[in-house]
């Protein structure tokens, strides 16, 4: 038998194959000079699958069982069972990139449908079949801005209120493109459009705004932001998420050139930050899009068929002149998002988004009644989440809430942030009581 569990070679087979190749043992096939060959031990003890399941179950059991009121870019919604059962089908899960479209029509069509979902949600005509996550999608948007607006400068403007990690990723992409990231101020949770207008000049290649913002605020003056960007000949990149897009202003209608963001709120359960990056844009930038695109075509019989297309943008053909280095992406997560969206239909998706608005408002009202807490901090409409100002220091309150079984964000010295979705909406009574208890 093989010494490795997933190879089928019996001893006889191995012997026959070695003999066919003309060597005595597998060692003879390796051409590694002795001075760099490894003959030590890695020290990894093999286990049975049952042992590993038990081991990992023990390890994960060390996570505390908290009710999470967490968001800020990673959201948990209920994922219908059918999403798991269908996406786990081996023909999807264990397939590779669709280099041979004739035997990959299933996944190609699913990705084409995913792109179409994003086209409908953004109003933009082009959506790729996924980026890693919202942060890397934003980074890629900046490199696109660099390519298409490179004559005009090297500054990328982002809101002052932005998730730190997202900005850090953006800065790494900007590093390679010799771009500089600068913030523009926000006022009561929304873009300070006047200040932004003052700042935008020839040196700005891109203006980024989010709707909803990292604080959960609906951005009320998107069109004005878009106008400022357009006036400055800067790319207007809008960040959002797949659920919010079902009800918020259509990005195309406010002049967005590119939409980035997260689609993992559909299809993926809470997964320690694993994501699904959206990248959509106007036709103008079609040949500048990073990542993979599925297009419709015909086969030799004249039947409709799908294929990866515009691959000359990609690294495996264009090498250092590619629009991005991305190849492996989040295709399977996109499939899951598409299935989840299908289970909801437009009515279900709009309901879900509206519930995110209603639940956030209702919870903010209740927390506002807790003595020593003010919510929401910003006088805006919110989607899912909102900031809470607390009179006492926020960090110990966060710890006390954790001791009561709840996780919330600590986002400032006296600021917490709370996110409510269908998954924890039935626990808001307990959360409010815990706030009452610990403040």
């Amino acid at each position, binding site marked *: 038998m093989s*010494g*490795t*569990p*997933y190879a089928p070679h019996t001893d006889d087979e*191995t012997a026959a*194959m070695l003999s066919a190749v003309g060597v005595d043992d597998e060692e003879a*096939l390796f051409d590694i000079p002795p001075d760099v060959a*490894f003959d030590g031990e*890695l020290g*990894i003890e*093999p286990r049975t*699958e049952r042992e590993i399941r038990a*081991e*990992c179950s023990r390890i*994960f059991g*060390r*996570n505390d069982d908290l009710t999470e009121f*967490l968001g800020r870019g*990673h959201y*948990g919604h209920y994922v219908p069972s*059918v999403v798991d059962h269908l996406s786990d089908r081996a*023909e*999807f*899960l*264990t397939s*590779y990139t669709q*280099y041979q479209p004739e035997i*990959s029509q299933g996944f190609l069509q699913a990705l*084409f*449908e995913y792109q*179409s979902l994003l086209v409908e949600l953004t109003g933009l005509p082009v*959506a790729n079949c996924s980026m890693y996550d919202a*942060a890397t999608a934003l980074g890629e948007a900046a490199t696109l801005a660099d390519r298409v607006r490179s004559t005009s400068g090297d500054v990328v403007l982002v809101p002052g209120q932005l998730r730190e990690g997202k900005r850090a990723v953006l800065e*790494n992409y900007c*590093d*390679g*493109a010799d771009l500089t990231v600068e913030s523009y101020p926000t006022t009561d949770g929304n873009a300070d459009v006047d200040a932004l207008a003052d700042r935008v000049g020839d040196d700005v290649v891109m203006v980024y705004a989010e709707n909803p913002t990292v604080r959960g605020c*609906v951005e009320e003056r998107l069109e004005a932001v878009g106008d400022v960007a357009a006036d400055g000949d800067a790319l207007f990149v809008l960040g959002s998420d797949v659920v919010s897009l*079902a009800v918020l202003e259509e990005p195309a209608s406010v002049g967005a050139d590119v939409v980035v963001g997260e689609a993992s709120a559909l299809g993926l359960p809470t997964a320690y*930050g694993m994501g699904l990056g959206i990248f959509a844009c106007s036709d103008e930038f079609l040949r500048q899009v990073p990542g*993979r695109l599925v*297009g419709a*075509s*015909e086969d*030799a019989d004249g*039947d409709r068929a799908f294929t990866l297309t515009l691959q*000359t943008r990609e*690294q495996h053909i264009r*090498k250092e002149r*590619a629009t991005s280095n*991305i190849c492996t992406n989040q*295709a399977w*997560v996109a499939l899951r998002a598409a299935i989840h969206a*299908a*289970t909801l239909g*437009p009515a279900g*998706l*709009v309901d879900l988004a*509206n519930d995110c608005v209603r639940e956030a408002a209702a919870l903010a009202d209740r927390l506002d009644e807790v003595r020593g807490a003010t919510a929401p901090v910003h006088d805006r*409409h919110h989607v899912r989440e909102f900031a809470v100002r607390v009179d006492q220091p926020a960090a110990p309150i966060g710890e006390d809430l954790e001791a009561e079984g709840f996780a919330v964000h600590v986002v400032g010295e006296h600021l917490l942030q709370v996110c409510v979705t269908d998954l924890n909406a039935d626990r808001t009574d307990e959360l409010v009581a815990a706030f009452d208890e610990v403040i």
Partner: protein
Amino acid sequence: VREPLLSEKGEETVDVTDESPLPDDLTRDELTLPAPSEPEIARHYTRLSQMNWAIDAGPYPLGSCTMKYNPKFTEDVAADPNAAVHPDRSERSTQGNLELQYRLQEFLAEIGGMDAVTLQPPAGAAGELTGILVTKAYHEHHGNDRSEVVIPASAHGTNFATAATAGYDVVELPSGDDGRVDVEALEAAVGDDTAALMLTNPNTVGLFERDITEIADIVHDAGGLLYYDGANLNALLGRGRPGDMGFDVMHYNVHKTFATPHGGGGPGAGPVGVVDELAEFLPAPQVRENENVSGYERFEPDHTIGKVHGFTGNWLVLVKAYAYIARLGDEGLSDAAAKAVLNANYLAERIDLDVPHGPFHHEFAATAGERDAADVAKRMLDFGVHPPTTKWPEMVPEAMLTEPTEIEGQSSLDDLAEAFNLAYADTDEALDAAPGRTAASRIDQVSAARNPRLSWQALDGE
């Protein structure tokens, strides 16, 4: 038989302004999407899946892609609801996830012969970018402003794109006659501007860079770093470690080497390993043991490059990789390499196509000679297998880059060889007309690109 688009099964339009608690000027007007019932959804995706090749359907010998069997139990491990926590949770309340991250870091460091590992990069290309950004930070930290990355012509396209994304100029190194790095050419190419040499080893035709020690010396002597592209690590598992060969930084493709499912294009994960000198530049946060509280903690490396993913990377994929490595252990890993190499050599022996370079390891680039490699590949579809990667790398004319991996047995390889040989020997007419036995016949890629239709909206009215 074609499956209609979901949109063709009936769309519904919802008036959003009617429904929303938000003021009308903050909402869209309406939303139009398909509204299928659950049975319709189940059938739609079941039928679509039935039109898709997969490793569970048969051999998938794409060179450089390492399409292994994805052990089913790793799915169950990753589905543990206790592991499904939010990334912003406190250290204290997520000791389980931190422990698994730490353990996987340690596994990977050991396998690569590296000193520190980050799990954050969400794919191989993201790992490359991370590694090159770490390289850049290292040089900048030491006051070296280096502008070039040297890459062999035979390297994966990603290497070139990565170097460019990181802001480097690319110096392309032509292959030596034997298909390996030409040491003299390397010496000529490397200099004060060299930030790094990116190398795949075994390279993309499966050849081990025998002169690796000399290569490492040349690069290091010039002050550059040596980057290991982990795409072909499967050939070396337990038998050679990049760290022992002089590599300073490397990425791991866990969706290749460590058998996590590729999911039709992703998600993967591209952890990056580095030697001690580079550890302080890794992305934040890293995970380490905290002896004081006998647990695990996050920390920010002193000169971290910051972040390469919004959160902690592709968590579910990483969990599966942990489970796979633990399943194999030392012996399983090194025998996986042995069987992968044996399989490639056996298959090469069985096919009628010429294989110009050797001795190769886990993959080989056969040449279709006078035939068009892409056409031969299409004809192979008719014999019930997935063909290899075609027309790449360019150093082999009409290349068919083939990597069977360790999971195929002798009879499966014999079937694959037969498909190769039948297709290769077939008539021009047959090759032109191929594939003829697949659900779709040959698909017109040119018109797809010339007239891009990228959504069902774009098809409306056709």
